[in-house]
């Protein structure tokens, strides 16, 4: 990637966050598109925790009106499974259909071809890369505890 990035160390791993876009607190990047829609995808932080993604399923359809934090889908990866939630309120404009058959682009090109969906709506609560990094500083400890706690079950 030619544009500038901020980095966050997850242990030994350097997670990179391009500054050409904004970020949602639930670990999705957000890129404004022409026409007012915003494209969302997983950040390096989320992908690092998930590792290889095997399966992605949406419970919502293009055109649906979503509430913020509404459950919208499920993901299964090498290390984890999780429900997914809408990063903001608004209309779901487009879903990346390619990922439904083969979700590997999420790992190969998370900031490009691995995008998840596009939605329009109020994007004012999104964070800058700097603010997202502060958010990560604050949640990294908790995330580590969550993962370790579950692994020791």
């Amino acid at each position, binding site marked *: 990637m030619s544009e500038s990035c901020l980095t966050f160390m997850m242990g030994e791993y350097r997670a990179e966050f391009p500054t050409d876009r904004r970020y949602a607190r639930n670990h999705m990047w957000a890129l404004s598109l022409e026409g007012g829609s915003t494209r969302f995808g997983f950040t390096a932080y989320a992908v690092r925790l998930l590792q290889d993604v095997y399966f992605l399923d949406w419970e919502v359809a293009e055109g649906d009106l979503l509430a913020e934090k509404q459950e919208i889908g499920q993901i299964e990866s090498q290390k984890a*499974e*999780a429900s997914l939630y809408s990063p903001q309120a608004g209309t779901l404009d487009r879903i990346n259909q390619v990922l439904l058959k083969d979700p590997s682009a999420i790992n190969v090109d998370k900031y490009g071809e691995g995008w998840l969906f596009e939605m329009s709506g109020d994007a004012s609560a999104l964070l800058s890369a700097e603010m997202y990094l502060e958010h990560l500083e604050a949640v990294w400890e908790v995330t580590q505890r969550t993962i370790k706690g579950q692994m020791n079950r």
Partner: protein
Amino acid sequence: MPHRLTVVISQSRSQNPKKRQLEEQVVAGLLGERGIDVTVVPHLYDLKPDGSGMLCLSGISGDLVVCSWLYPRAARWILDRNQIRGQEGKTLLKSLGETDDDDEADEEAIDDLAEDKPRVADQRELPARRIYCLDLRAYDDASAFREEIVRIATELATPTIELNGWINGNPKPEQMERYLAAETAAPEPRQATVIEEEGGRRWYPVIDLSRCTNCLECIDFCLFGVYGIDARETILVEQPDNCRQGCPACSRVCPENAIIFPQHKTPTIAGSADVAGTLKIDLSQLFGAPDPGAPGAEKAMEVAARERDEQLLLAGRDAVGMQVGMPKRHESELSGSVAKDQLDELIDSLDELDF
């Protein structure tokens, strides 16, 4: 005719290479095994009632082992809904999340269920053939499944062998030779029958009729016309594809826990007999899930009403909250935590009057 057993491998929806590999290893381990036919179908839950997968399964009249990425209860009742029925075969394998400790808990759960309420399944007669459902998620090693299937095949074939001994006492050597020759004459199939079926992922409720009491709470609750009743006034998933993708709300209002959504992440909703956790880490909170332990976390009925409202809004309809079709037994829960309507206020004010 020597006994034949059909083993069905229902494929995973996911591209997980480990899952694909396990499926292939189970198939490979069974090819050439005496008396066993192998059929591969897409994910059982996604098969359409009139699609090639279900038609193929309907055509099998003998004993059946079904290996799927589902809880055995879910697999069994999906088959049942498609008129693929038989006596429940008892497997020695565990399902996902089951441990040895669970046996006691299971027995307790069964005791609870054994209350003398009549169940829908009580009135039904099933064909004599056996259906065994194995959970492919429970073991990483294909040999566990192969050994169990061979054990089942032996168990099912045993009466034939006993009969043979009973006819003649000790067979003469030439009789034995003829018998063995007949067994080996027909070459065993060296490949599996693979059924393909196009079609998307489906989402609909599956009713466990051994738990269902036909109380019909689910018909009252669901506002999308999924449920109906059959000619004998018994509950029926009449329009499965009217069901809203991802919404498990009716299973939360079912008093008997009889409604299964096989793809739901919560084991009890997905057809588990217990509440053991999943094997993978749950990162849902990372992506915005509410903390289930937080003060004010929702109760099951509130979750059901909220999930239903979300679907009503998505469908362009009005939310109804807890005003419509909620089970009567939850009225006390209802008045405690939900915004009160005028009627509640009226009743409250009556209560305050000291007669």
